[in-house]
């Protein structure tokens, strides 16, 4: 595909998701046709995808993330169903290894009683790892296969079929997960400390004098500080994963461009690709681990009452 495209076009093509959304009536499409009425359709250009606004979904992101999540669920559920207390063999011992590792990590960082946190950590670690792992598949394989497969079936122009394989390079996916974690944080905070306790935590820290007529004036500053630190948690969680994987994928794309630059470029790109992929194995595991640990730490903070008591006295 790169042959008849500019490098910029190639990169942009790789960074565009397969978006499905609604285009308004009178909209001029990428091929010049004008829509007579608002239509739900698949975007044929980045501009179209952008014009679809918020009410659009990235079919590739959701498809891969759900597919990989299902693989995780089915494999682990199968292992769990077949697991015996005897000598563990093959896949069972692998699953138990992962489970034990997660259990240990969660026990180290999460001292409270909540049966949901450890399975959530396991889900995050394996799921995010699997999504990151898609980054190691050569960047053109799946998009090309999908584009040509689609054009063979529907007759669509393969150049207008976008396909991103790694869900974690889509900000929607990482922020979506981070928002879910954020929602859980607030839920558990309110559940553990009560609504009043949660509000108190937001308004009476870190500055607290103990005299109400002074505290009243401190509330806005406290709230500003606490709100920023609270919001910063999911944002940094989502952006960290996205940034690492996006950058990683970008480098793979740039290396892929070098493949087309003569024989020397081909060999050099091959070596670069291999080196970066090997390094990336570390990155994808580490990012999955970081996302998992930070989620557990946030959960632990949501359950923590110590701070509240320390400041209330």
């Amino acid at each position, binding site marked *: 595909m790169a042959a008849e495209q500019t490098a910029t076009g190639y990169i942009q093509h790789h960074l565009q998701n397969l978006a499905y959304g609604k285009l308004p009536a009178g909209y001029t499409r990428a091929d010049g046709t004008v829509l007579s009425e608002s239509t739900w359709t698949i975007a044929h250009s980045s501009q179209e995808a952008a014009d679809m606004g918020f009410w659009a979904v990235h079919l590739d*992101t959701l498809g891969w993330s759900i597919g990989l999540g299902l693989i*995780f669920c089915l494999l682990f*559920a199968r292992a*769990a169903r077949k697991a015996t*207390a005897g000598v563990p063999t093959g896949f069972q011992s692998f699953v*138990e290894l992962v*489970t034990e590792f997660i259990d240990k990590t969660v026990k180290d960082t999460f001292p409270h009683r909540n049966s949901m946190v450890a*399975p*959530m950590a396991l889900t995050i670690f394996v799921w995010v790892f699997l999504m990151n792992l898609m980054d190691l598949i050569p960047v053109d394989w799946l998009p090309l296969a999908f584009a040509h497969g689609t054009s063979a079936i529907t007759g669509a122009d393969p150049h207008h079929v976008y396909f991103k394989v790694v869900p974690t390079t889509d900000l929607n996916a990482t922020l979506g997960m981070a928002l879910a974690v954020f929602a859980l944080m607030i839920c558990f905070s309110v559940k553990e400390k009560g609504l009043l306790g949660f509000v108190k935590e937001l308004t009476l820290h870190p500055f607290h004098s103990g005299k109400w007529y002074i505290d009243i004036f401190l509330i806005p500053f406290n709230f500003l500080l606490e709100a920023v630190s609270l919001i910063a948690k999911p944002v940094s969680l989502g952006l960290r994963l996205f940034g690492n994987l996006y950058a990683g994928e970008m480098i793979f794309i740039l290396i892929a461009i070098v493949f087309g630059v003569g024989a020397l470029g081909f060999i050099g790109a091959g070596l670069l690709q291999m080196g970066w992929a090997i390094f990336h194995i570390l990155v994808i595991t580490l990012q999955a681990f970081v996302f998992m640990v930070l989620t557990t730490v946030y959960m632990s903070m949501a359950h923590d009452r110590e701070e509240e008591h320390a400041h209330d006295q």
Partner: protein
Amino acid sequence: MNINLTLIGQSITFFAFVWFCWKYVWPALLGVMQEREQKIATGLQEAERAGKDLELAQRKAAEQLKEAKAQAAEIIDGANKRANQIVDEAKEAARSEGDRLKAAAQAEIEQEVNRAKEQLRSRIAALSVAGAEKILSVNIDAKAHDDMIEKLAAEL
């Protein structure tokens, strides 16, 4: 790079997978692992106990072996003594039997000697009578001189 509905979709997916793992994967896996831990713990305990039992049994066996050896030695000793006794008894019996046989033989010999003496005496008496008859050429009344010959013979 547009923020859109995918965000919400991903959140829902996240909750769904977490819920599934929470309900169907984690408890089963951890249950199995804890059960195995328990099994291993009891296994180790039992092994320890078995080791102690073995040591005890070995000690007991050694003791019994020692006892048996002592008993065997005692029995052998007794048997030896009894054997010696039997031999002695047999010797004694043989000796007395020998003595008895010897005595009987001697008695018989004595009897024979006596008989021979008796015969000899009678023959000598007869011979002496015959000799005296010849010498004296007289018919000696045997009966009259029997007493004298008898005395003569007894002197032999």
